[in-house]
């Protein structure tokens, strides 16, 4: 109604102070909400891009025996269940058009043994065929020192996070074969104690087998690497060649599947393993675990002593994996895509199920949602304060205008008219100032996004969701901001409306 609009509009200018206070609050709230959402959406998208493209694919297949979906980051979890039928899975995947590419991988908890003493520290190791890993992920690893593995054979790629951990806590410094430590990339704490460091060009990992026995393998350090983004998180995941990994975990290796190994050889291997333990001076540690039957290490002879030997050409896929990483085709919503993938997998009775990257990375995958929730609570709190201030200001305004309002009522304006007038006044304020806040927020996000701010800092990278800060606003984010603003306005106006609506004509007359 034009009359209401006219009165409301002119009242905004008549009560400039009040209008500005409420307007400023609404502007700030809307700006914070929008910009905050932009940062978090950007982080979400960044995390997704960097995790999916650099660490675990869109989704991954895990064994039906695997209890938790969080196969990557469950700290106290049970070992990730083995997958022994990769060949069947592989041929099935060839017949699934939704899957663009895939990578079989081993992943489990292992202990890194310190050869100087009985010390050991646990970490998650990934077992892959390097060429395939590279084909799947491209250049997600940055070389810090050394060289990427060229041909087959055992290797470990030590991420900087783990190098730092071992250096600072155990005085063990990993360097690639035949190279001195690259001091430029070391942490200050390690650099200071460099002379005391025990330099290592190979690492020894001990895996816990399914039957509680242990096996350890020595692998040569080929390179120190850094995950291109989110190195903070992935820095504790060294990458080991799949055959060494299998030996470490007591899995069936491809070599064992290829050549039938005689029992006598097995014993031999077990013996050579024991001597390896002696060599490390960690017998007690191993013995405490080794009470069971001898470790079923197959083909360990080729590794004992850390010598690098050309392995016979074997069919790697005959051995055990823990998961198959998938990149999916098409733009379907991930959850839906994975559901339909699971129906297909179930029909084929492969004993595996698909899990989204979000579920597989637990906390990290849901971090954006968590932070978004936190921001929402924060902004809601801010809006709550805003609502209280607005309620107060508007109620005061209503009382101040009692003669005017009472007189309108006396000459025939219904309560509804008065309420609409107040709502219109607040609504215009909300639309103008809140709208400006949203627009400013969108603009800020757009501007910041074009600046392409980058960071090498690991924690900042986590917040950026990658190495570049790319805040992002989606249409739903903006719609949400508008709805929130509307809700705030509505909540703020309810009580003042009651106050204004209850002003009687008599209130106008009986005052001067």
């Amino acid at each position, binding site marked *: 109604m034009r*009359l209401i609009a*006219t*009165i409301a509009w*002119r*009242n905004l200018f*008549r009560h400039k102070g009040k209008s500005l206070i409420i307007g400023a609050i609404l502007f700030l709230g809307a700006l914070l909400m929008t910009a905050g959402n932009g940062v978090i959406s950007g982080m979400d998208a960044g995390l997704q891009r960097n995790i999916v493209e650099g660490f675990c694919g869109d989704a991954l297949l895990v064994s039906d025996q695997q209890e938790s979906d969080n196969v990557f980051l469950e700290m106290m979890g049970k070992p990730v269940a083995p997958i022994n039928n990769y060949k069947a899975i592989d041929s099935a995947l060839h017949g699934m058009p939704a899957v663009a590419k895939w990578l079989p991988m081993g992943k489990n908890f292992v202990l890194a043994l310190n050869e100087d003493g009985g010390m050991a520290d646990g970490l998650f190791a990934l077992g892959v065929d390097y060429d395939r890993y590279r084909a799947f992920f491209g250049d997600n690893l940055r070389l810090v020192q050394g060289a990427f593995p060229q041909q087959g054979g055992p290797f470990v790629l030590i991420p900087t996070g783990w190098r730092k951990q071992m250096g600072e806590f155990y005085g063990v410094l990993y360097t690639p074969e035949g190279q001195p430590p690259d001091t430029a990339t070391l942490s200050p704490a390690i650099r200071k104690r460099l002379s005391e460091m025990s330099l290592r060009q190979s690492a020894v990992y001990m895996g816990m087998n399914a039957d509680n026995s242990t096996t350890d393998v020595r692998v040569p350090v080929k390179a120190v690497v850094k995950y291109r983004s989110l190195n903070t998180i992935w820095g504790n995941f060294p990458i080991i060649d799949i055959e060494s990994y299998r030996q470490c975990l007591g899995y069936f290796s491809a070599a064992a599947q290829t050549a039938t190994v005689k029992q006598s050889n097995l014993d031999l291997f077990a013996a050579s393993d024991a001597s390896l333990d002696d060599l490390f001076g960690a017998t007690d540690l191993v013995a405490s675990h080794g009470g069971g039957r001898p470790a079923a290490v197959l083909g360990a002879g080729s590794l004992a002593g850390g010598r690098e030997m050309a392995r016979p050409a074997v069919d790697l896929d005959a051995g055990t994996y823990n998961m198959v990483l998938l990149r999916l085709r098409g733009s379907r919503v991930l959850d839906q895509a994975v559901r339909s993938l699971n129906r297909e997998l179930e029909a084929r009775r492969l004993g595996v199920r698909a899990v989204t990257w979000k579920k597989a990375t637990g906390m990290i995958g849901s971090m954006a949602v968590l932070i978004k929730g936190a921001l929402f609570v924060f902004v809601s709190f801010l809006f709550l304060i805003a609502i209280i201030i607005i309620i107060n200001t508007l109620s005061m305004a209503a009382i101040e205008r009692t*003669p*005017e309002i*009472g*007189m*309108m*009522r*006396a*000459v*025939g*304006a*219904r*309560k509804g*008219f008065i309420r609409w007038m107040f709502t219109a006044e607040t609504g215009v304020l909300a639309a103008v100032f809140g709208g400006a806040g949203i627009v400013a927020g969108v603009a800020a996000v757009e501007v910041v996004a074009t600046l392409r701010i980058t960071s090498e800092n690991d924690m900042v990278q986590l917040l950026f969701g990658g190495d570049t800060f790319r805040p992002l606003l989606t249409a739903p984010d903006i719609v949400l901001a508008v709805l929130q603003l509307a809700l705030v306005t509505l909540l703020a106006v309810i009580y003042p409306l009651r106050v204004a609506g209850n002003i*009687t*004509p*008599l209130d*106008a*007359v009986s*005052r*001067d």
Partner: protein
Amino acid sequence: MNIIETTGLVKDYPLGKTTVHAVRGIDLAIAKGDILSIIGPSGSGKTTLLNLIGCIDTPTAGRVKIGDTDVTALDDRRVTDLRLHRIGFIFQTFNLIPVLTALENVEFPMLLMKHHSRAEIRRRAQQLLEDVGLAEYVQHRPAELSGGQRQRVAIARALVTDPDIVLADEPTANLDSVTGASILDAMREMNAKQQTTFIFSTHDANVLKYAKNIVKIKDGLIAREA
């Protein structure tokens, strides 16, 4: 035919621990087309009585009938609509809407009625402002008008809807005698043409000249009906 009837009208105001008996039982029957003056000393209850008749105050006891309607039984919305469509009010303390011009203030009740075209509303409001001698001031806001000018805007606003009843609490108190007389003349004309009922409270002897009937009240009771 009586357009207004009050029976046993009582109004008490609580004031701290005591009660002020502003109106103490007034029976009044006002015929359509009357020009009635209510006179009485200050504090005798004139304003209170007008407020009760004009449905902007509710009686403590007794009833008010406007035409055939017992207004004391109506809900707020009906009473509001009744005020809008049948009653014009000129307050002792005249209130205008500060953000609207004189012209818009006069248009205000007509706009609320939603019966007339904007052009008609504008024309009528303009005419009434001319009648009260404010043709020059139509675009002024209330803050830019003198007390008497504001009073005249309020009078124009009370008349603009062509009400059946016009209640005026000391309508000429702020006006010089010439302006007052011209307004009263206009009212008398309206009364003659449209049978509009006028009820004034006043101390002004000049106003009394226009009255067809006079009611004198004292201490909230009718002292003498002339």
